[in-house]
């Protein structure tokens, strides 16, 4: 089994593989933030902080304890979720932009703390050993991303997901309907942080070197861009946004130093012409049904 996977991977060239792995991690990160910002409507500007918690936890576990990689990722995710819940408990009382700046502030504080801790090797960063698993890394990422997508689809159609959407639409009305908004927001925040932690753990082992400065404000913004660009609250949107933005640096490579210039301008133009994101307002279930319906003349005639 493992050999078969290895053979499959050997056939893909390493460059493409690297991009695919980046996309996979981006999808996990984007779906986590999508739950917090897209579904629950709580703007977070500090998602990279939870990614860094996961990345450093996972790296330290790999360096000192050599845990099996699955357990390692789980611990990384749980640590991020725990800290997310701990932070979320006081700050989720804030609303709107106050919450946004509080998450931003938390992320900056955490970055500076990591830059000063001995266990994270201060500003020098950590070299991460290869993960303790037989399964090749691309398959691990693919598997985790797939599980995340399925998990998120279940959440969207569950009582939990509907409660979150009710909070996004109108928190007061939702509370009047008997939804415990604080609890649900906290749970959404914890799940989002968990995914960020897992994504961070994967990122650390793919990149093999992590530095606290990698997880600054711009990283959080990158993840937010994926969610907004694809279409807030939409799972296919987040996947598309993550795929486009994670591979964009490679597609734009021919522009060399103009790359970020074009990226900035593209963000503005996309928002001006498509303010709800690429897939915002598109109902996928209905779209798929429509396509299937067209192929069935009997049903169309009816």
């Amino acid at each position: 089994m493992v050999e078969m996977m290895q053979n499959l991977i050997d056939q893909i060239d390493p460059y493409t593989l690297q991009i695919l792995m980046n996309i996979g991690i981006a999808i996990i990160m984007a779906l986590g933030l999508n739950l917090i910002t897209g579904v629950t409507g709580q703007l977070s500007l500090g998602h990279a902080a939870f990614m860094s918690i996961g990345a450093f936890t996972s790296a330290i576990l790999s360096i000192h304890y050599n845990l099996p990689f699955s357990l390692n990722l789980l611990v990384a995710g749980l640590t991020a979720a725990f800290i997310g819940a701990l932070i979320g408990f006081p700050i989720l009382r804030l609303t709107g932009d106050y919450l946004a700046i509080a998450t931003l502030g938390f992320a900056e504080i955490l970055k500076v703390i990591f830059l000063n801790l001995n266990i994270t090797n201060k500003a020098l960063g950590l070299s991460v050993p290869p993960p303790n698993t037989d399964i090749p890394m691309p398959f691990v990422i693919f598997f985790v991303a797939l599980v995340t997508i399925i998990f998120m689809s279940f959440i969207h159609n569950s009582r939990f997901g509907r409660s979150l959407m009710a909070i996004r639409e109108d928190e007061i009305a939702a509370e009047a309907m008997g939804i415990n908004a604080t609890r649900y927001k906290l749970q959404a925040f914890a799940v989002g942080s968990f995914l960020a932690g897992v994504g961070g753990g994967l990122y650390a082992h793919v990149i093999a070197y992590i530095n606290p400065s990698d997880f600054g404000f711009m990283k959080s913004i990158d993840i937010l861009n994926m969610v907004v660009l694809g279409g807030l609250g939409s799972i296919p949107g987040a996947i598309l946004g993550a795929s486009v933005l994670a591979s964009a640096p490679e597609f734009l490579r021919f522009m060399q130093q103009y790359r970020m210039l074009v990226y900035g301008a593209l963000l503005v133009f996309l928002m001006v012409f498509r303010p709800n994101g690429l897939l915002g307002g598109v109902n996928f279930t209905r779209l798929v049904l429509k396509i299937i319906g067209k192929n069935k003349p009997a049903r169309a005639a009816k």
Partner: protein
Amino acid sequence: MLLQQLINGITLGSTYALIALGYTMVYGIIALINFAHGEIFMAGAFAGLFMVTVLKINIFLSLILSMVFCMIMGVVIERIAYRPLRKSSRLSALISAIGVSIFLSTLALMVFGADAKGFPDNTIPLIQIKLGPAEISSLQLLILGISAFLMMALEFIVRKTKIGKAMRATSQDYHTASLMGVNVNRVISVTFALGSSLAAAGGVLVGILYNSVSFNMGLMAGLKAFAAAVLGGIGSIPGAMFGGIFLGVAEVMGVAAGYSSYRDAIAFAILVLVLLIKPTGLFGQKIQKKV
């Protein structure tokens, strides 16, 4: 020692306050976190530097020209990147602002290069003035003077002029103001112009103070100024002034107390603590939620 740090802190804080005012004014009127504001601050610093070093213009004239330059820049940015998005979700406008920010900082990187540039030494003659146990330099005095003057000018415009009245009306209720005959588009343009010119002044002053102007100076300064605006209660002009000076003093005191490696975290730690105790900032009005 304490007095000296207080002077240094207030000097740094008044530049934060200049930037924070732009954030708070724009937020007060269209509820947008203008993430490109830090980049306008950077552009102002570069404009001032360009005029002093290349065109050899006097520093005071450069300061005014740089303010005018950024005024135009702020208005143009609002036209292109924010006005089409006024009716869509606030998050789209936020991403658009981030796009502008990335664009401007990359542009500065390409035009001026990656290394930090400094103002010539003789830009402002340095004289140390004894003030009891502490010293204040002519530069610090100048920064304090210019900041105080600009803030008073802003206060005058907002309180005493017709456009200021229109600004206050718009920030209270956008739609009602437009129904009362206020030209809302013009008010928003003026707000961006005023905020951007203050940021430009802040940029030139910080550039001289630290003798360093670089393409990425806008990011951290912008974030801290934003923190200052929220600390004071976003949308409140006196709040932004107080927040900026408070954070500046706290940062300088923190560094003096030996926490220099935590320098960038101090402002945010204070911000988070204040928000936990008073969720709408120090001078912020409590938002009454209507059902």
